[in-house]
């Protein structure tokens, strides 16, 4: 019979998870309803601000390029959606249908999703994911995939909470010698 571990004092991190009361959102929820719609040029500054806040890197050229390729590109299976509350863009999701890459039949791929830290815990990311999955369904695919860093526990937890499970692929990498 295995032994119970030697008692250890619960860490501060664990103690914060023991409250039965869920943490309140960082800001008061706005009275305005949340809308999910395709991105517009005017949303880009907010998208860049959210991404910069989360990643620590401002990638303005990258986002401008992404906007040029993904805005108004539904016909080619590309989707760039934003979550808007009132007149504020508070989140985004980007993805596309990819055919036969890595040997897989056509499926939807989500390769970016985020919500302004002060607007989290209000269901925005859930609605963003639902919206892009609805678009994937309309495009005729029945599976959605994503990939993320294994130490990104926050987003991993989110995708898990939405029902995603580990897929049949293994990402591999190699350092290229100069």
């Amino acid at each position: 019979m295995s032994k119970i571990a030697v008692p250890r004092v619960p860490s501060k991190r664990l103690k914060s998870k023991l409250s039965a009361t869920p943490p309140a959102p960082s800001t008061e929820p706005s009275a305005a309803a949340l809308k999910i719609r395709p991105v517009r040029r005017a949303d880009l500054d907010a998208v860049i601000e959210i991404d910069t806040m989360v990643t620590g890197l401002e990638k303005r050229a990258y986002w401008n390029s992404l906007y040029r390729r993904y805005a108004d590109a539904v016909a080619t299976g590309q989707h760039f959606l934003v979550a808007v509350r009132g007149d504020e863009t508070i989140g985004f999701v980007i993805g596309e249908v990819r055919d036969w890459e890595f040997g897989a039949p056509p499926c939807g791929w989500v390769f970016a999703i985020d919500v302004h830290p002060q607007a989290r815990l209000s269901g925005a990311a859930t609605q963003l994911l639902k919206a892009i999955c609805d678009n994937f369904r309309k495009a005729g695919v029945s599976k959605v995939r994503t990939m993320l860093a294994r130490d990104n526990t926050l987003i991993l937890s989110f995708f898990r909470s939405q029902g995603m499970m580990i897929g049949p692929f293994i990402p591999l990498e190699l350092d290229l010698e100069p």
Partner: protein
Amino acid sequence: MKLQQNTRLALYSLLEFAAAPERQISAAEIAQKYAVSSHHLAKVLAELSRVGMVQSVRGVGGGYRFVGNARRLTLMDVISRFEDVLPAENVGSQQTPVGHALASVLSEIDEIARASMSSITLATMLRITERQQQGSR
């Protein structure tokens, strides 16, 4: 990935409690459902109570109640109370080139397991259970 019996009992118990947070559930009820000894289960529940994940309720109709936050507590939070989850240190044979190479391959699997367990909350686990039940009907 194999979990020790105490760890599995802890997870089973917590998920039963978290699925019905308004209920007081006795150790005997869980022991019967999972075909384990109440005495053994009591030790596991004592540890869960000590760290504040469940609360024992004394008196007639007593039992245990879930008092954690199912949306924040992860499987790793529970597992780490009962098992050594730290990466293995490179000692002895692992300090040879072959030992080191094998350790690096095995650590890939450990890292994925750790990431999975750390990202699945009790609330998510309950949803997975529900989905699988619906799928099997």
